[in-house]
């Protein structure tokens, strides 16, 4: 198509290209996700690859997640105590912190931490493989790069994030407990009221959300890396893009799921 140099048409053309670009990436991403999930259910199983990714996503993130949980629970408790003191409802600090951790803070903050740690690393790793033509080499060797590289990562994210979120839930309540007790809240009230007010559905819904976050952060990271181009600079762009897009997608999907679930 001949380039339009009209001052009126240029912005319109830009807008059109932008829309098409966004649609293109959404579609391309969906196709990649579909193929990765579809090829995960079939031999060869490549269990070792999946386990290696689980280690990278899950086991190696535990320390970060514990720290996140402890400090989040602690600072949240500090703020809640300040508010609840106003009308002498300090005994309700426990359930407030526990509900916030289990429903929102645990799953979301875990997902954000893991995105920063793992999602960007996946984008960089696959991006480097792309620009050094290792992915093309895999294709030449008749190994499906999507099954070989992407499926294990997505499965690891889907399965490991709920466990990490559970760790964050627990350490968050632990951090809250420590702060609350130090601030003079009755320890028995703190724990007892949590038992009264927090039900299993709160925890289960939170963990379900974190599974979806795991799917998002790994698949976005893989997509950005897998389709990166433009040498070392492209790899950097992929890693940054993976983090930004994952963050936005995680927060937006969190809102939607919460609206439907609770």
């Amino acid at each position, binding site marked *: 198509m001949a380039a339009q140099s009209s001052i009126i048409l240029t912005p319109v053309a830009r807008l059109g290209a932008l829309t098409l670009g966004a649609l293109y990436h959404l579609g391309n991403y969906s196709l990649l996700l579909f193929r990765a999930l579809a090829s995960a259910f079939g031999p060869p199983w490549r269990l070792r690859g999946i386990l290696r990714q689980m280690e990278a996503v899950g086991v190696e993130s535990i320390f970060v997640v514990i720290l996140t949980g402890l400090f989040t629970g602690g600072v949240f408790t500090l703020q809640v105590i300040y508010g609840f003191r106003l009308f002498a409802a300090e005994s309700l600090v426990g359930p407030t912190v526990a509900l916030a951790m289990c429903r929102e803070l645990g799953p979301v903050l875990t997902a954000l931490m893991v995105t920063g740690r793992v999602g960007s690393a996946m984008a960089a790793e696959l991006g480097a493989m792309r620009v050094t033509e290792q992915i093309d080499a895999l294709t030449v060797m008749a190994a499906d790069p999507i099954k070989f590289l992407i499926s294990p990562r997505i499965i690891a994210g889907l399965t490991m994030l709920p466990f990490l979120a559970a760790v964050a839930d627990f350490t968050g309540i632990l951090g809250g407990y420590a702060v609350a007790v130090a601030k003079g809240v009755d320890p028995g009230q703190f724990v007892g009221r949590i038992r009264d007010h927090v039900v299993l559905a709160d925890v289960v819904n939170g963990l379900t959300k974190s599974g979806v976050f795991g799917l998002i952060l790994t698949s976005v990271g893989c997509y950005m890396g897998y389709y990166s181009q433009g040498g070392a600079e492209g790899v950097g762009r992929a890693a940054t893009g993976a983090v930004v897009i994952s963050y936005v997608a995680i927060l937006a999907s969190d809102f*939607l799921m919460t609206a439907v679930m609770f």
Partner: protein
Amino acid sequence: MYKSSTEIKVGLFVLAALGLFVWMAVRLGGFGLSVKDTYNISTVFPSAVGLKQGVAVEVAGIQVGTVASIELYDDKQARVVMAIQDGIRLPADSAAFIRSSGLLGDKYVELAPGGGTQEKLEAGGQIAAARAAADVSDVMQQLGEIAADLKKITAPLAEGNTGSDLKDLISNLKDMSERLSGIVSANEAGLTETLAALNGSMTNLQEITDKINSGSGSLGRLINDDSTVRELNQSLASIRHITGRIEAGEGTLGRLISDDGTIDKVDRALSSLTGYLEKEDKFKVFVEYRADYLTRHDFLKSTINLRLQPGPDRYYLLGVTGDYFGKYKRSDFRSTDANGVVRNSIEEEWRRDKLKFNAQIARRYYDMVVRGGLIESGAGLGLDYYLDEDKLRLTLEAFSGDFDERPHLRAEASYNIWKIFYFNLGYDDFISDQHRASPYFGLGLRFNDDDLKYLLSGASSLF
């Protein structure tokens, strides 16, 4: 720029699905995003303490507007301007209260619509302020006053100086008895007459009992004649016999009454019957048949589905589809010929008119149905959005094809044209890399339980 339109098609498809999901989430979450036009009315309160701009204005507990502004009026009162939603017409003699809700007593304005006039409030109108309903502090104050009154009464009792009161009581009693004797002496003549009349009545009664004793009159015969008593005795004996049998649990009635097992059984039968009826009420069965003409392939594709619906919010779908594109099978063969050369050969097999299976679980959230399971023998997900009182259905489906690398996508609109008839219009497999994409249209039939019963009874009468 983007030569491949497949990705853009998929992007549109996913965007549509996401759009439906967002819409559903917003509706489920109960977020009111609409901004309504309003008109202002105002009222003057002696005090607007605790009232804040933007709090709710309610009528009968339903929000009709918000507090737009609060300002000082005449240097000593509070003028509250309220923005009321257009379309809510309040009578001109309405009154406004300040009320509080919740433990912390958050204040809001409640309007009490008057009923004395047909006139409606216009924009800028002013209404009267009624005394704010009792809040917690008022109640506490009144309770305090009541307690003070009670104390006044009980204080003398507690102190024990009740002597004068008792004396009063006794003098009252004396007074009363004196008045009673006064009444009796004043009505002596009337009282004597009454007593004489009573005496006459007693004499009549004596006569009646004499008659009964002598056996005259039916009552007398009943009492004095032995045969009557004998008959009565016999009746009583047979009644006793019957009740004895009943007690012993003999006979139908006896078993019904004496045997606990019987009543248990009746109980169980009744409860299972009601359970069955209730379940019948909720459980629904549909049979759906549809035939779609795929214009590009000149092929009529038919589907028959059984839909079991245990409740309004979920159903199970089982069915078969006769598809133009059958199962694809590819086998690699390796053979060595006489010269020792290895040859690879590939055998491809395509079967047409292949039966494909549907088995799905569906859940409904308001106007949206999410389905998952087997769609035409492939693993897939479906999304239905219903409009216009369920007459119009918009559907997006994605499932794994057996030949394409790409997922099989389908978009469809279906409209209930008349009773059991549906018209379907859609675009099938539109990102296929094997040239399978095709628009289609077709007709669907959907029978519910009642239609089926009718059809079956009609069919049985033929034989």
